[in-house]
């Protein structure tokens, strides 16, 4: 049941972000799909007890790969798909907790939350970099095969 709720809500949330960012109408369901698959990867991995950081790397990687496939297939800039997919992974909650601890003078908790938020943002970047590297390697090897 929990999984079903997450599937539906993450799809709607990501598609909603497509509307906020004024993505073309026909791309909205793709935005939703990317967001849903990324969030499900993250959700299922953390559900299995895997840490937030590796789960975020995996989810961001998956989002970037699917977005690359979509951008090739539909001949559209990759950014349209990647943005709505990444949003749910952004550590809003952790950053909020850090902020709240800072203003209530609980600096120990604040710093550890802030460090975690920083790590999670870093792992989003890591996931995107990984997929970019792989796509470039594939592009080059294809060129060599033809040449």
């Amino acid at each position, binding site marked *: 049941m929990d999984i079903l709720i997450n599937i539906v809500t993450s799809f709607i949330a990501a598609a909603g972000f497509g509307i906020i960012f004024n993505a073309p109408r026909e791309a909205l369901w793709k935005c939703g799909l990317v967001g849903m698959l990324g969030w499900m990867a993250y959700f299922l991995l953390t559900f299995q007890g895997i840490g937030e950081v590796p789960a975020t790397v995996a989810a961001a990687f998956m989002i970037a790969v699917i977005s690359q496939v979509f951008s090739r297939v539909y001949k559209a800039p990759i950014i349209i798909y990647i943005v709505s997919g*990444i949003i749910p992974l*952004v550590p809003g909650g952790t950053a909020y907790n850090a902020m709240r601890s800072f*203003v209530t003078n609980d600096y120990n908790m604040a710093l550890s939350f802030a460090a975690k938020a920083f790590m999670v943002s870093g792992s989003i970047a890591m996931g995107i970099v990984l997929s970019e590297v792989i796509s470039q390697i594939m592009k080059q090897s294809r060129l060599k095969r033809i040449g």
Partner: protein
Amino acid sequence: MEQYLEEQYDIMDVCLLAGKIMLESGAETYRVEDTMMRIAKNYGIKESHSYVTPTGIMFSIETEEPTKTKLIRISDRTTDLKKVMLVNSTSRRIANGELDVPQAYRILKRIYKDDETYALMTRIAAAAVSSGCFLMMFQGSWADFIPAMIIGGLGFASVVYVHDLVLIKFFSEFMAALVIGLLAAGAVMTGLGQELDKIIIGSVMPLVPGLLITNAVRDLIAGHFISGLSKGAEAFLTAFAIGSGIAVVVTLL
């Protein structure tokens, strides 16, 4: 004669207009550079150089005539993925040789002028629904779904409204976060909502600078350090504005 001069579009203008639209709509720096150079190349310019930062574009083309360089300033940046896509497909059509220079210029001009966004109400509704959905994704309870939806929608509406009044992005984000925090606290106090933290996190999500973060990372990877760092700074500033807006409410409680 004057008429003739007005009609005389230049390859350079086409490239710069394409770059300007893309940059103002939130495209990555390397995509802007790539598109401009591609257009120039397809119109027979062997060598072109561009230097793109979030606040300005410098572009020069080398022909038999003396090198031409132009600088344009970018002051307003929004997010409009549709325009990015339209310019991208125009650039593809240029590459296929479908458009000559005046045609391309006219098409780009139309894209630039057209403000074909979703209606404001649609966007507010989208923000509201997303807020509610985010609450559920962050393990909130169904009881808080409606409050998070309403507060998220009002928060997004206030960022748009305040930004129209004062053109300082930091301030409008701060005010929106303040509104969200106050409404969420009010909802919890009156018993309409249950978990303050979850409601705030869900409602704040539409304000989170997701595009900036993604773009900053992608720019840094591509080696555009100035753009990457300044976009990162912009994202940090937004996050700081949201955080301090919420912080004010938390301190008051």
